[in-house]
């Protein structure tokens, strides 16, 4: 596992560093250039975590671009180990990206350079859940189909959304769909209130980890069958 992570770090390190630098400049500049907004530090961190969660896909996309998938599979490692390294490496890359931006923003806030509302207890939970949802959803597609898998997933998700809206409009009005979404949000809020912030946070993180475990199992199954 460590050898695979090291390999990916060497082969992708410069591109990742450049991406971190460019993205950080953009994210850090956004609240500075638009002062007076009512955004909170936590909301800003989620906004940052979302694109960071796509960074693992950048690495796999590069592998696809150079047709280098066969390189990893010709090394003396199992397919399962490669799939594991994609998850561990993916989480690391996403978390490091978010941590760099959040850390820099914390320094800027402390120096009075931004007007973001102070961070809350929910910041780390929100970042982990955001990254976890994206990684768990996208990695199986990416490992099997590469970049085209990501595109197919995103387009399919959009089409599914359009179909859901059309169906809702035709049969029950859009209010029905809105009610469903509001009910889901209310259910989550009810759980948060019932469990309390600490237990709810732990439950959310555990749920995301289980989702990633299921996603990983699927990825292993898929990756064993991938042909190069």
């Amino acid at each position, binding site marked *: 596992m460590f050898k695979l992570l090291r390999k990916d770090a060497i082969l992708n390190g410069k591109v990742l560093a450049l991406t971190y630098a460019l993205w950080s400049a953009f994210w850090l500049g956004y609240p500075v250039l638009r002062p007076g907004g009512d955004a909170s530090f936590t909301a800003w961190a989620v906004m940052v975590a979302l694109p960071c969660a796509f960074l693992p896909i950048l690495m796999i996309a590069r592998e696809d671009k150079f*047709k280098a998938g066969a390189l990893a599979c010709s090394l003396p490692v199992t397919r399962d180990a490669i799939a594991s390294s994609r998850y561990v490496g993916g989480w690391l890359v996403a978390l490091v990206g978010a941590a760099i931006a959040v850390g820099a923003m914390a320094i800027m806030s402390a120096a009075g350079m931004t007007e973001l509302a102070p961070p809350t207890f929910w910041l780390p939970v929100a970042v982990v859940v955001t990254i976890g949802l994206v990684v768990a959803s996208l990695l199986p597609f990416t490992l099997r189909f590469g970049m085209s898998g990501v595109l197919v997933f995103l387009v399919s998700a959009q089409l599914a959304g359009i179909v859901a809206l059309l169906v809702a409009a035709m049969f029950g009005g859009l209010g029905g769909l809105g009610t469903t979404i509001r009910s889901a949000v209310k259910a989550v809020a009810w759980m948060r209130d019932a469990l309390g912030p600490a237990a709810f946070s732990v439950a959310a993180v555990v749920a995301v980890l289980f989702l990633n475990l299921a996603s990983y199992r699927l990825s292993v199954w898929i990756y064993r069958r991938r042909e190069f």
Partner: protein
Amino acid sequence: MMDLAIEARGLRKRYRAFALKDVDLDVPRGYVTGLIGPNGAGKTTLIKLIMNLVRRDAGTVRVLGLDNVADEVAVKSRIGFIYDEPPFYHDVTLGDSARAIAPFYPQWSDRRFRDLAARFDLPLGKRFKTLSHGTKMRFALAVALSHDADLLLMDEPTAGLDLAFRRELLDDLTAILQDERKSVLFSTHITTDLERIADYVAFIRDGAIVFTLPKDDLRDRWGVVRADRPTVDRLPAAIVRGQRERPYGVEALVADAAAAREALGPGPVIDRASFDEIMVFMSREGNHVQAA
């Protein structure tokens, strides 16, 4: 019983438009075996099956005595694999690529890699994409040889190289192999590559191995009979491997030129069969070929 580096039995792989059919392949240990056949015959698929880069539908592959799937890690640590298009990151330098790969191989020797890099004039500080195809192949060869692999698997290593570079690469390879007696399986559709370095020749056509023979047997025993139809028809069917009509008569590829001479007497012309001729006769594309 021959000591084998690769032993494939009943290997099957079906694609929509192509199938590898019950392939049996023996690659002797310590020798160079050339896998030859026309384009689309199944050479790359067979090599990928040995490397477990594609999943087999049936059959077994033993590499250096180990199952290539059950013992995948142990098997791959003893293989040096070279693709026709080396799969390295284009924007990474050769030195960094080697640094990323080295830890996977317990037998990797930095000193040997540096020696090979110097011998092949590899610019380790340059990015992969800036190199010529020949230099890319040499880098792949240097990586494959730096971990003291017992078996080299090479898929069309000379494809796309000009004649001079191809010759240099094969000379480099031959010199290294002469010293170390590694086992090698390399696929090619260039017959002169076989003549330069192969000890054994395996011929594949339409997803099936037609024969695996020592190169010297092919060179010394096989022949081409050039005669008229009645004369060719007198050849024993068991030795005829293919025929084709020519403007001046008929050519027949025979697996035993001495037996053909005995059957036909001193009259007809019987030449040694070149690898090109064997390839043409045995290939689907051959003109009016009827393989026996």
